Protein backbone atom coordinates (compact mmCIF):
# COMPACT_ATOMS: atom_id res chain seq x y z
CA UNK A 1 0.00 0.00 0.00
CA UNK A 2 2.87 2.37 0.59
CA UNK A 3 4.34 3.89 -2.51
CA UNK A 4 7.98 2.86 -2.74
CA UNK A 5 10.55 5.54 -1.92
CA UNK A 6 12.94 6.26 -4.76
CA UNK A 7 16.10 8.24 -4.15
CA UNK A 8 18.39 9.86 -6.69
CA UNK A 9 21.74 11.41 -5.75
CA UNK A 10 22.99 14.43 -7.62
CA UNK A 11 26.09 16.62 -7.19
CA UNK A 12 25.63 20.37 -7.56
CA UNK A 13 27.73 23.43 -6.80
CA UNK A 14 26.24 26.35 -4.88
CA UNK A 15 26.63 29.91 -6.28
CA UNK A 16 29.26 30.40 -3.55
CA UNK A 17 31.23 27.50 -5.04
CA UNK A 18 30.55 24.83 -2.42
CA UNK A 19 29.87 21.24 -3.50
CA UNK A 20 26.35 20.16 -2.49
CA UNK A 21 25.07 16.57 -2.51
CA UNK A 22 21.35 16.49 -3.29
CA UNK A 23 19.20 13.50 -2.28
CA UNK A 24 16.02 13.64 -4.36
CA UNK A 25 13.21 11.59 -2.81
CA UNK A 26 10.08 10.41 -4.58
CA UNK A 27 7.06 8.50 -3.19
CA UNK A 28 6.18 8.02 0.48
CA UNK A 29 8.59 8.47 3.38
CA UNK A 30 7.54 5.97 6.04
CA UNK A 31 8.96 3.08 8.08
CA UNK A 32 9.59 1.13 4.86
CA UNK A 33 11.88 3.89 3.54
CA UNK A 34 14.91 3.10 5.71
CA UNK A 35 17.13 1.87 2.86
CA UNK A 36 16.06 4.63 0.49
CA UNK A 37 16.58 7.40 3.04
CA UNK A 38 19.23 6.28 5.55
CA UNK A 39 20.88 3.70 3.29
CA UNK A 40 21.41 6.25 0.51
CA UNK A 41 22.76 8.82 2.97
CA UNK A 42 25.09 6.28 4.63
CA UNK A 43 26.53 5.31 1.23
CA UNK A 44 27.79 8.87 0.66
CA UNK A 45 31.54 9.31 1.22
CA UNK A 46 31.79 10.94 4.66
CA UNK A 47 35.26 12.39 3.97
CA UNK A 48 34.19 14.57 1.06
CA UNK A 49 30.48 15.28 1.53
CA UNK A 50 29.92 18.32 3.77
CA UNK A 51 26.60 19.79 2.58
CA UNK A 52 23.58 17.51 2.07
CA UNK A 53 20.39 18.92 0.54
CA UNK A 54 17.19 16.87 0.75
CA UNK A 55 14.63 17.38 -2.04
CA UNK A 56 11.08 16.57 -0.88
CA UNK A 57 9.30 18.18 -3.84
CA UNK A 58 8.09 14.80 -5.17
CA UNK A 59 7.09 13.37 -1.79
CA UNK A 60 3.35 13.21 -1.10
CA UNK A 61 3.23 11.47 2.27
CA UNK A 62 5.56 11.57 5.27
CA UNK A 63 4.58 9.98 8.57
CA UNK A 64 6.23 10.06 12.00
CA UNK A 65 8.37 7.02 11.17
CA UNK A 66 9.61 8.84 8.05
CA UNK A 67 10.35 11.95 10.10
CA UNK A 68 12.30 9.73 12.53
CA UNK A 69 14.48 8.56 9.60
CA UNK A 70 15.25 12.19 8.73
CA UNK A 71 16.16 12.86 12.39
CA UNK A 72 18.40 9.77 12.42
CA UNK A 73 20.14 11.13 9.32
CA UNK A 74 20.57 14.49 11.05
CA UNK A 75 22.15 12.77 14.08
CA UNK A 76 24.62 10.89 11.86
CA UNK A 77 25.37 14.06 9.88
CA UNK A 78 26.01 16.00 13.04
CA UNK A 79 28.49 13.34 14.19
CA UNK A 80 30.29 13.61 10.83
CA UNK A 81 30.47 17.43 10.75
CA UNK A 82 28.01 17.53 7.84
CA UNK A 83 25.15 19.99 7.44
CA UNK A 84 21.65 18.94 6.34
CA UNK A 85 19.27 21.25 4.48
CA UNK A 86 15.94 20.55 2.82
CA UNK A 87 13.54 22.06 0.31
CA UNK A 88 10.28 21.23 -1.44
CA UNK A 89 8.17 20.45 1.62
CA UNK A 90 4.50 21.42 1.46
CA UNK A 91 3.28 24.13 3.85
CA UNK A 92 1.80 21.39 6.04
CA UNK A 93 4.99 19.36 6.33
CA UNK A 94 7.05 22.53 6.82
CA UNK A 95 4.79 23.15 9.83
CA UNK A 96 5.17 19.55 11.06
CA UNK A 97 8.99 19.61 10.70
CA UNK A 98 9.01 22.89 12.64
CA UNK A 99 6.73 21.47 15.36
CA UNK A 100 9.05 18.53 16.04
CA UNK A 101 12.12 20.79 16.13
CA UNK A 102 13.88 19.72 12.92
CA UNK A 103 14.35 23.36 11.89
CA UNK A 104 16.68 23.85 14.86
CA UNK A 105 19.24 21.56 13.21
CA UNK A 106 18.37 21.61 9.48
CA UNK A 107 17.60 24.62 7.33
CA UNK A 108 14.35 24.42 5.33
CA UNK A 109 13.92 26.33 2.08
CA UNK A 110 10.94 26.64 -0.29
CA UNK A 111 12.89 25.62 -3.40
CA UNK A 112 16.27 24.45 -4.68
CA UNK A 113 17.37 27.90 -5.89
CA UNK A 114 16.77 29.47 -2.47
CA UNK A 115 18.57 26.60 -0.75
CA UNK A 116 21.63 26.72 -3.02
CA UNK A 117 21.82 30.52 -2.71
CA UNK A 118 22.13 30.14 1.07
CA UNK A 119 24.88 27.48 0.95
Amino acid at each position, binding site marked *: *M*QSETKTRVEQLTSPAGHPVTVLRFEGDI*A*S*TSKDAVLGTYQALPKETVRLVLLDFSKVD*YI*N*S*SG*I*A*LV*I*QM*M*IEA*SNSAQMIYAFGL*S*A*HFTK*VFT*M*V*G*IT*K*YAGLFPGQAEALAAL
Partner: protein
Amino acid sequence: MSELTPNSVPKTTTVEVRLPSRMGFEKVAMSTASAVAKLMGFREDRIEDLKTAVAEACINAIEHGNRLNDKLSVGVVLSAGADSLEVKVIDDGTGMTKQPGNVHKPDIDRKMHGEEGPRGMGMFLIQALVDEAEWVAGSGGKSSYVRLVIRLDKDAE
Protein backbone atom coordinates in the same frame (compact mmCIF):
# COMPACT_ATOMS: atom_id res chain seq x y z
CA MET B 1 -23.30 12.63 1.68
CA SER B 2 -25.28 15.45 0.04
CA GLU B 3 -26.81 16.27 3.42
CA LEU B 4 -23.47 17.66 4.63
CA THR B 5 -24.43 21.21 3.67
CA PRO B 6 -24.61 23.79 6.47
CA ASN B 7 -28.38 24.23 6.15
CA SER B 8 -29.28 20.59 6.20
CA VAL B 9 -27.19 18.88 8.84
CA PRO B 10 -29.64 18.46 11.67
CA LYS B 11 -27.77 15.52 13.15
CA THR B 12 -24.61 13.53 12.89
CA THR B 13 -23.73 11.67 9.70
CA THR B 14 -21.51 8.64 10.24
CA VAL B 15 -19.01 7.01 7.89
CA GLU B 16 -17.18 3.83 8.91
CA VAL B 17 -14.08 2.22 7.44
CA ARG B 18 -12.42 -1.02 8.50
CA LEU B 19 -8.72 -1.40 7.79
CA PRO B 20 -6.48 -4.47 7.85
CA SER B 21 -3.66 -4.28 10.41
CA ARG B 22 -1.06 -3.67 7.73
CA MET B 23 1.13 -0.60 7.41
CA GLY B 24 0.12 1.61 4.53
CA PHE B 25 -3.63 1.12 4.93
CA GLU B 26 -3.73 4.25 7.10
CA LYS B 27 -3.82 6.07 3.77
CA VAL B 28 -7.34 4.72 3.16
CA ALA B 29 -8.49 6.36 6.41
CA MET B 30 -6.67 9.57 5.47
CA SER B 31 -8.47 9.74 2.10
CA THR B 32 -11.84 9.05 3.72
CA ALA B 33 -11.32 11.66 6.44
CA SER B 34 -10.18 14.15 3.81
CA ALA B 35 -13.27 13.53 1.66
CA VAL B 36 -15.65 13.95 4.61
CA ALA B 37 -13.87 17.10 5.81
CA LYS B 38 -14.03 18.58 2.30
CA LEU B 39 -17.78 17.94 2.15
CA MET B 40 -18.13 19.69 5.50
CA GLY B 41 -16.29 22.76 4.21
CA PHE B 42 -13.03 22.56 6.15
CA ARG B 43 -10.12 24.67 4.89
CA GLU B 44 -7.34 22.83 3.03
CA ASP B 45 -4.75 23.41 5.78
CA ARG B 46 -7.10 21.95 8.42
CA ILE B 47 -7.72 18.94 6.17
CA GLU B 48 -3.95 18.37 5.97
CA ASP B 49 -3.77 18.53 9.79
CA LEU B 50 -6.61 16.03 10.06
CA LYS B 51 -5.02 13.65 7.52
CA THR B 52 -1.75 13.52 9.46
CA ALA B 53 -3.55 13.06 12.81
CA VAL B 54 -5.74 10.26 11.40
CA ALA B 55 -2.73 8.57 9.77
CA GLU B 56 -0.76 8.62 13.03
CA ALA B 57 -3.74 7.30 15.00
CA CYS B 58 -4.17 4.43 12.52
CA ILE B 59 -0.42 3.64 12.52
CA ASN B 60 -0.49 3.42 16.34
CA ALA B 61 -3.56 1.17 16.18
CA ILE B 62 -1.99 -1.11 13.54
CA GLU B 63 1.49 -1.26 15.06
CA HIS B 64 0.96 -1.00 18.83
CA GLY B 65 -2.74 -1.81 19.33
CA ASN B 66 -3.15 -4.76 16.99
CA ARG B 67 0.61 -5.53 16.83
CA LEU B 68 0.45 -5.98 13.04
CA ASN B 69 -1.81 -9.01 13.53
CA ASP B 70 -3.46 -9.61 10.15
CA LYS B 71 -6.42 -11.30 11.83
CA LEU B 72 -7.37 -8.06 13.59
CA SER B 73 -8.74 -4.96 11.95
CA VAL B 74 -8.75 -1.26 12.81
CA GLY B 75 -12.10 0.51 12.87
CA VAL B 76 -12.33 4.15 11.84
CA VAL B 77 -15.62 5.90 12.60
CA LEU B 78 -16.09 9.43 11.31
CA SER B 79 -19.02 11.36 12.76
CA ALA B 80 -19.77 14.60 10.94
CA GLY B 81 -21.80 17.04 13.02
CA ALA B 82 -22.97 20.54 12.21
CA ASP B 83 -19.73 22.20 13.26
CA SER B 84 -17.24 19.47 14.03
CA LEU B 85 -15.88 16.17 12.81
CA GLU B 86 -15.14 13.42 15.32
CA VAL B 87 -12.89 10.51 14.33
CA LYS B 88 -12.58 7.38 16.47
CA VAL B 89 -9.80 4.94 15.62
CA ILE B 90 -10.48 1.64 17.36
CA ASP B 91 -8.15 -1.34 17.79
CA ASP B 92 -8.09 -4.57 19.75
CA GLY B 93 -5.15 -3.67 21.97
CA THR B 94 -5.24 -3.04 25.69
CA GLY B 95 -4.78 0.67 24.98
CA MET B 96 -4.07 3.48 27.35
CA THR B 97 -5.93 6.33 28.94
CA LYS B 98 -4.19 9.55 28.10
CA GLN B 99 -5.20 13.17 28.00
CA PRO B 100 -3.40 15.73 25.82
CA GLY B 101 -1.57 17.17 28.85
CA ASN B 102 0.11 13.78 29.40
CA VAL B 103 1.43 13.38 25.87
CA HIS B 104 5.23 13.48 25.66
CA LYS B 105 6.53 16.38 23.60
CA PRO B 106 9.52 15.33 21.48
CA ASP B 107 12.74 17.07 22.49
CA ILE B 108 14.93 17.51 19.42
CA ASP B 109 18.00 18.39 21.51
CA ARG B 110 17.70 15.13 23.46
CA LYS B 111 17.15 13.21 20.22
CA MET B 112 20.21 14.78 18.59
CA HIS B 113 22.31 13.86 21.63
CA GLY B 114 21.06 10.27 21.72
CA GLU B 115 19.22 10.76 25.03
CA GLU B 116 15.83 10.08 23.41
CA GLY B 117 14.99 7.78 20.48
CA PRO B 118 14.36 9.38 17.08
CA ARG B 119 10.82 7.92 17.00
CA GLY B 120 7.89 8.56 19.36
CA MET B 121 6.28 11.60 17.77
CA GLY B 122 2.91 10.18 16.68
CA MET B 123 0.84 11.02 19.75
CA PHE B 124 2.39 14.48 19.96
CA LEU B 125 1.47 15.19 16.34
CA ILE B 126 -2.08 13.93 16.86
CA GLN B 127 -2.76 16.17 19.83
CA ALA B 128 -1.01 19.16 18.27
CA LEU B 129 -2.93 19.00 14.99
CA VAL B 130 -6.54 18.55 16.15
CA ASP B 131 -8.76 20.48 18.55
CA GLU B 132 -9.36 17.54 20.91
CA ALA B 133 -7.61 14.20 21.37
CA GLU B 134 -8.12 11.53 24.00
CA TRP B 135 -6.95 7.97 24.35
CA VAL B 136 -9.37 5.56 25.97
CA ALA B 137 -8.45 2.04 27.13
CA GLY B 138 -11.10 -0.55 26.25
CA SER B 139 -12.68 -2.65 28.93
CA GLY B 140 -11.34 -6.17 29.14
CA GLY B 141 -8.37 -5.32 26.92
CA LYS B 142 -10.52 -4.86 23.82
CA SER B 143 -11.73 -1.99 21.67
CA SER B 144 -9.37 0.71 22.83
CA TYR B 145 -9.66 3.88 20.87
CA VAL B 146 -8.32 7.32 20.22
CA ARG B 147 -10.93 10.01 19.71
CA LEU B 148 -10.08 13.10 17.68
CA VAL B 149 -12.21 16.16 17.13
CA ILE B 150 -11.62 18.91 14.61
CA ARG B 151 -13.95 21.91 14.66
CA LEU B 152 -15.21 24.05 11.83
CA ASP B 153 -14.26 27.60 12.64
CA LYS B 154 -17.08 29.33 10.87
CA ASP B 155 -15.40 32.77 10.91
CA ALA B 156 -12.22 31.44 9.35
CA GLU B 157 -13.53 28.69 7.05
